């Protein structure tokens, strides 16, 4: 058996080096990806709607093209909202961390100056 003292130290080191994924971060990344995908789908649907309406004089098919176009707009708006929501959350988190760091550095500078 490994000496218990060494074993615990080894255990501590391995736990400290273990890579952890925050489930909340993965979820946010998923929503962000979904937002981008929806925006892309919206653009594709708009193009499809244009092509469908351009190649026909039949009002029924043109109505279908209108529906596809509106679905594209909806996708793009929802996707844009999701992208904005989760990219802003990520940006503000970074900004807050930066602010805290700056404040701490400033406090250290003031204390050193005294």
């Amino acid at each position: 058996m490994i000496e218990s003292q060494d074993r615990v130290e080894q255990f501590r080191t391995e736990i400290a080096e273990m890579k952890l994924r925050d489930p909340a971060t993965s979820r946010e990344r998923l929503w962000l990806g979904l937002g981008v995908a929806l925006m892309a789908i919206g653009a594709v649907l708009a193009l499809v709607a244009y092509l469908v309406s351009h190649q026909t004089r039949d009002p029924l098919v043109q109505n279908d093209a209108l529906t596809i176009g509106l679905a594209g707009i909806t996708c793009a708006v929802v996707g844009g909202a999701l992208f904005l929501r989760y990219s802003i959350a990520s940006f503000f988190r970074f900004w807050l961390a930066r602010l805290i760091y700056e404040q701490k550095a400033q406090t250290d500078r003031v204390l050193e100056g005294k």
Partner: protein
Amino acid sequence: MSIVDAAALDPDAAPVENLLELRGIRAAYDGIDVLYGIDLTVPRGSVVALLGPNGAGKTTTLRVASGLHAPSAGDVIVAGRRINGARPEELARCGFCLVPEGRGIFPNLSVRENLRMMTYGGQSLKHIEEITMARFPRLRDRRSQVAGTLSGGEQQMLAMARGLATEPALLLLDELSMGLAPIIVEELYEIVAQISREGVSILVVEQFARTVLGAADLAAIMVHGRIAKIGSPDELEAELSTAYLGA
């Protein structure tokens, strides 16, 4: 209930490092809460007994600690690091070992094959067999026997042997005594005490409280998903009936 360490029991004692800490752990199954803010610590090299009646949330606490069940709130801290979200296999590889309720062996494989399954960590089968046979001499003559045909006590020994083969630093034991004769249980807890003396920190969950109190350094009683009482085994022994019967 506040977090308790050994210093709380002996004010003159030096501060003790905790290998496992659960802080404000809440957990649920399908939206139904089963743990309501568990605070518990396992100081380095000690045996902590988590006692309580059936359905108190003891096994869920172990599952949360070992990464098998994600807590809905709270922190799991191992060796000073918050490890919420860690994969159980990674924890096991580091030396955080859970011996689950119901033994967790492969009943259709032989004893040797069961031990061979523990060579994933890079240790040789020979080394694992040496550790096992030194600790559980009774398994020496059963090496070729199919594990499902062993007696209940021997199966439990094999389950523990599989856990100990990885030379864990932190060992979680779930209901060691389940379905076993009292004399076997006594033998198993002597082994637990011996493992603890070698420096392994142990958290043991047990429904039959008096069987484990002799081997424990600290004990906690859990009722309805909450820690009702933490203290030394002597302190808690008198309160067991009250806690279990809810009087």
